[in-house]
């Protein structure tokens, strides 16, 4: 790596930021001209942030630790089902629990599953881990699909409350909500806009917290050991590190972040079904991570944004009727081609990790870490 100063950005980074800026401006323009409903734009922002969370979770496992986890959908699903089963009015188990408490239900389920899946599989060779984790994720999906006395089965869970539904002020807002400035109403907002906005605030807080947390642990000695394991597990072993314990910790942390995304998803979409646990969810997240750059959290953010662009863009394109192909196959085709071309042309991704890997002090100083 040549001289890399904090504060200066590579042309590629500038390009990505510029592109995102243009896209953002276009979306804003679409809202202002009434082409796109504001609530829908906010919903898309929330969804992108959810994929960012999933990608960051996978990054801890694959990007930092080199573990090929193909059970992303299972952890996402358990987070979503955990909170939904506790809060939803349609829940066959209990329902009615406050979302803030239920959050921990979802996380707890995911943590237990992470240990159950991780304990046997993390000792396996890379490609075996991929197959085994995909198989175990399918077991989870089959379980949720068939044990309808607990999970409502293929019908899915409805009646999930908003995350803020029982909060003191936010839960009691009346709609349309009117902003007053000095006693005169300035503008009013519909319920969907306000709830979408609150969801975006919520997920922004989660993403920011997770990002800072990951950056911290990644730069810690713990993160250094994990990177050593990814590069050469035998070397880490020789250095006296209990590599299995480190991998297990990373696996659980990553899974918890995925479950967090699932919890948010439940309260964003207000409906979960076994469809959400299909392997395709896992592969979407994989595309996001390898596109953005394995091990790079900024890349994960770019990847999450791209996935939502593909999902919603294909829907939009086929709605206009301009294409002779349905939205679902078009999406599959794009994701498939994206995977093939990334591995062929840019295996390190678009925003590979650079300064994430080192302390800011060591940049430019020429001193090896």
């Amino acid at each position, binding site marked *: 790596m040549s001289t890399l100063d904090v504060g200066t950005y590579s042309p590629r980074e500038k390009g990505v930021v510029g592109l995102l800026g243009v896209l953002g401006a276009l979306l804003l323009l679409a809202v202002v001209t009434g082409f796109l409903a504001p609530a829908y734009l906010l919903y898309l922002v929330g969804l992108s942030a959810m994929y960012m969370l999933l990608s960051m979770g996978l990054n801890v496992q694959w990007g930092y630790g080199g573990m090929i986890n193909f059970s992303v959908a299972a952890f996402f699903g358990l987070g979503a089902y955990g909170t939904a089963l506790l809060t939803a009015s349609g829940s066959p188990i209990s329902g009615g629990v406050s979302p803030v408490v239920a959050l921990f239900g979802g996380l707890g389920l995911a943590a237990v599953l992470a240990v159950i899946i991780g304990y046997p599989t993390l000792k396996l060779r890379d*490609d075996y881990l991929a*197959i085994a984790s995909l198989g175990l994720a399918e077991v989870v999906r*089959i379980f949720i699909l068939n044990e309808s006395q607990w999970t409502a089965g293929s019908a899915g869970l409805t009646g999930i409350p908003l995350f803020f539904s029982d909060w003191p002020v936010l839960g009691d807002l009346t709609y349309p909500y009117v902003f007053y400035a000095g006693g005169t109403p300035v503008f009013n907002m519909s319920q969907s806009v306000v709830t979408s906005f609150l969801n975006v605030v919520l997920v922004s807080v989660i993403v920011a917290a997770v990002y800072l947390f990951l950056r911290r642990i990644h730069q810690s000695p713990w993160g250094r050991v994990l990177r050593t394991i990814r590069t050469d597990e035998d070397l880490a072993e020789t250095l006296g590190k209990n590599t299995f314990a480190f991998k297990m910790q990373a696996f659980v942390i990553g899974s918890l972040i995925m479950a967090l995304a699932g919890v948010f998803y439940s309260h964003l979409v207000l409906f979960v079904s076994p469809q959400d646990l299909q392997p395709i969810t896992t592969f979407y997240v994989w595309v996001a991570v390898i596109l953005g750059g394995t091990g790079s959290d900024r890349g994960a953010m770019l990847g999450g944004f791209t996935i939502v662009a593909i999902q919603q863009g294909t829907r939009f394109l086929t709605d206009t009727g301009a294409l002779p192909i349905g939205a*679902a196959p078009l999406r*599959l085709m794009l994701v*498939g081609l994206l995977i093939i071309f990334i591995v062929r042309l840019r295996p390190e991704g678009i925003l590979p990790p650079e300064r994430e890997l080192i302390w800011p002090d060591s940049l430019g100083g020429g001193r090896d870490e």
Partner: protein
Amino acid sequence: MAQILQYLANGLVFSSIIILGSIGLSLVYSIADFANFAHGDTMTLGAYGAFVAFGVFGGLGGTVLGLPIGFFIALVVGMALAAAVAVLTHILVYKPLDTDSIGLLITSIGVAFVYRAVLQASFGTDFLQYDISRSGPIPVLLDTLDVAVTQRDVAIIVSAAVLVAGLHLLLQRTTLGRKMRATADNPDLARVSGIRTDRVILVMWVVGSALAAAGGVFLALYSQLDPRIGFNILLVVFAAVILGGIGSVYGAMLGGLLIGMLHELTPLLSDVGLPISNAYAPAVAFVIMVAVLLVRPRGIAGDMT
């Protein structure tokens, strides 16, 4: 007892399908050295290829085991199509890649999506059927053993057996087979011995994909055809390959037989009082797969080629 015989009969049909899938997966795993996640969709591709071909040749007269001659022609067309697509994919996608086995694994997921996207765009997601009328169980077996087996089931088992026997002869009795076994065993040694391993790898793709396509056709014949059948069965096929021992063709056959049987014997669990319903049949296979990986990653026939 008759119940168990019935499960075993079903198991034999399902095993035939799994065996055809697992041979190709195992070949690619040993020769090209990666877990090919596109293998399931290769099966689907063959099934759709045969579906289209059956529309053309289906009218041809004469029947064998209740299936029109045209069906067998369509089967061959489906196998040829899958083989051609696999070779093309190998040349266009996998070969130019400068990556490790994990990179290839991830790429194969992309390939699987592209195959499925093309099929889904062309045929939609509705269930399709080969236009062959179904007949009831064979009366003799029903009367004597109280087991319901249709002519179609027998046709699947016999066809699979013929294909597997053909592969066995190819591997054991021909020069090409010896080259294939040598390359599977030790690619570098094979190369320095003067075997053109590039060509052997192409043959491997042809054989593996053609057999997978046959498995896909029989799977569609056994149940029905939709763009997901192959991917849905892929993990069961992986379970068979891993149980048999990765890279071993005969192990894959044995693993396929066992996993297919266990898959269809799952109802036995609830018959003896375990609350595990039929829907968990694939889950049982996956759990066995993980257990084998942990206890005996070489598989039960790890060293035979």
